[in-house]
């Protein structure tokens, strides 16, 4: 039986995050040909509706309200439930982002439904859909299916391939009104430490530094390499705790979870909490002075050596390659 699926489009700095398009692709599989409705929530978001449609949504509904400028679970919960009441979907897909992680359990509790969090792959379609998700800090995976009620999942960014954008697709973008009131939490202040450049959770290449970079300056060569490869820089907890970089760069269980095509770990020992955030990367390169470092166990390619020698050599070598190409 085909399913009507609603997908939450997540907006950051006025633009849709990639994970929203990946969520639409996941919704397509779950729907088995049913309708896909995009949902946008914010103070001014309706203009992004067409883009969701170009990525595969059939139509979009937007809830706009001044109280929705900042995310709060109450505000977004009320907005989402207004859409839910109108649409009565059989399935729901969110991104497994800070917002998705915070909001999805609330909605699942309201709906008395199951919820499969942090899905990295989907096998089968429609009623046969089986969801794959990492457990035990990424050391194992489980396959689960939803036995009854709403099919509700959150998808890990950068794991499910989005559909190709089709600029020719168009559809209806309508607004839904909702009373957004009695918010029990108020956002007083946001300190954005957004790094300039590429968003780490969506980057194809990440060059990450650990305590081995030894100082804030130590990140400079890493940054140069990342720029050269069109990638982003990241860090271990060790580097953040030592104040070599900001916590917004932290990768791992408590930080961001990333799945780039290429992950270069420089001066990172490879603690399990770090691996939980990056071990799914397609290709991993480790550069570490210590041949026994745990990071070599997950690396595809390793160089035992001083990162301050290796990284500048890599930069030169890649520059050469580009000149010759």
């Amino acid at each position, binding site marked *: 039986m085909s399913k009507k699926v609603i997908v939450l489009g997540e907006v950051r700095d006025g633009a849709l995050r990639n994970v929203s398009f990946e969520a639409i692709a996941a919704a397509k599989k779950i729907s088995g040909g049913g309708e896909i409705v995009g949902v946008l929530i914010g103070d001014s978001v309706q203009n992004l509706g067409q883009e969701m449609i170009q990525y595969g949504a059939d139509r979009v509904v937007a809830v706009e309200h001044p109280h929705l400028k900042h995310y*709060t*679970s*109450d505000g977004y919960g009320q907005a989402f439930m207004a859409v839910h009441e109108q649409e009565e979907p059989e399935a729901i897909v969110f991104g497994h982002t*800070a917002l998705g*992680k915070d909001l999805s*359990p*609330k909605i*699942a*509790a309201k709906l008395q*439904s*199951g*919820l*499969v*969090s942090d899905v990295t792959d989907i096998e089968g379609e429609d009623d046969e859909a*089986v969801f794959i998700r990492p*457990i*035990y*800090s990424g*050391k*194992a*995976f*489980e*396959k*689960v*299916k*939803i036995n*009854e009620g709403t099919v509700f999942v959150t998808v890990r960014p950068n794991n499910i391939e989005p559909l190709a954008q089709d600029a020719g697709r168009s559809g209806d973008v309508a607004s839904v009104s909702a009373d957004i009131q009695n918010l*029990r*939490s*108020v*956002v*007083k*202040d*946001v*300190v954005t430490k957004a790094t300039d450049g590429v968003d780490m*959770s969506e980057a194809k*290449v990440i060059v990450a530094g650990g305590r081995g970079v030894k100082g804030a300056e130590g990140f400079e060569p890493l940054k140069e390499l990342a720029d050269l*490869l069109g990638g982003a820089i990241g860090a271990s*907890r060790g580097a953040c705790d030592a104040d070599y970089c*900001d*916590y*917004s*760069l932290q990768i791992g269980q408590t930080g*961001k979870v990333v799945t780039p095509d*290429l992950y270069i770990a420089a001066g990172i020992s490879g603690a399990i909490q770090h691996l939980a955030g990056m071990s799914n990367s397609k*290709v*991993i*390169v480790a550069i570490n002075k210590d*041949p026994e470092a745990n990071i*070599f*166990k997950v690396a595809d*390619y*390793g*160089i*035992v*050596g001083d990162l301050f*020698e290796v990284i500048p050599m*890599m930069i030169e*070598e*890649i520059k050469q390659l580009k000149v010759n190409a």
Partner: protein
Amino acid sequence: MNIYALVKRTFDTEEKISVQNGQIAEDGAEFIINPYDEYAVEEAIRVRDEHGGEVTVLTIGSEEAEKQLRTALAMGADKAVLINTEDDLDELDEFGASTIIAEYLKDKDADLIIAGNVAIDGGSGQVGPRVAELLDINYVTTITELKIDGDKATVVRDVEGDSETIEAQMPLLVTAQQGLNDPRYPSLPGIMKAKKKPLEELELDDIDLDEDDVEVKVERVDVFLPPEKQAGRVLEGDLQDQVKELVQLLRNEAKVI
């Protein structure tokens, strides 16, 4: 203040993990308090020490979880509750776990409930917010700072590296993110005292729940380990040559640059 900390006994994921009969093998495994729940217990104790009141640690699990509860009591919690589902349930999903916790808490007038941001084994991060919603109280997840003043709390929340300062109405459920505090180790006198602190054991019956009320919505059909990664290639030779080889491999073999 009436404070609850939600604690899960988890597999220590720093240990080697293997699968037997479609399940994670637990024989001889090391079990710990979920690390994020240690932050929760520590914060609960600190709030109590500042504002007065009582800290109760609560877990759903089997008899074996008593050990983790005693550890939390040794850290300084006042009371412990074990909801033992061993005889009643073979499986339990996040829907069921939160239903049980909320059912237990619904008439306890909790002012503050602290959970972990995520359990390192199950990894869903659902249980905290679900419990709050079922109790119809406010919640804030992944917090790194908590200050309580009367019926309001000021909370700093980690949002993918950004920090949000939030004014939140009490009663409140928060989930602990790394960085909230440094959990204390139980002291020897703490361990001695913990042996005499009350640990109540309940079953589903005692909180008026039936197995059917918590029947899983999500069914686990398989558990597997990621394909064994071929031992990575550690390059050899002159460092300059290694780097040359690496860049060639990334371009021609892995095709990622």
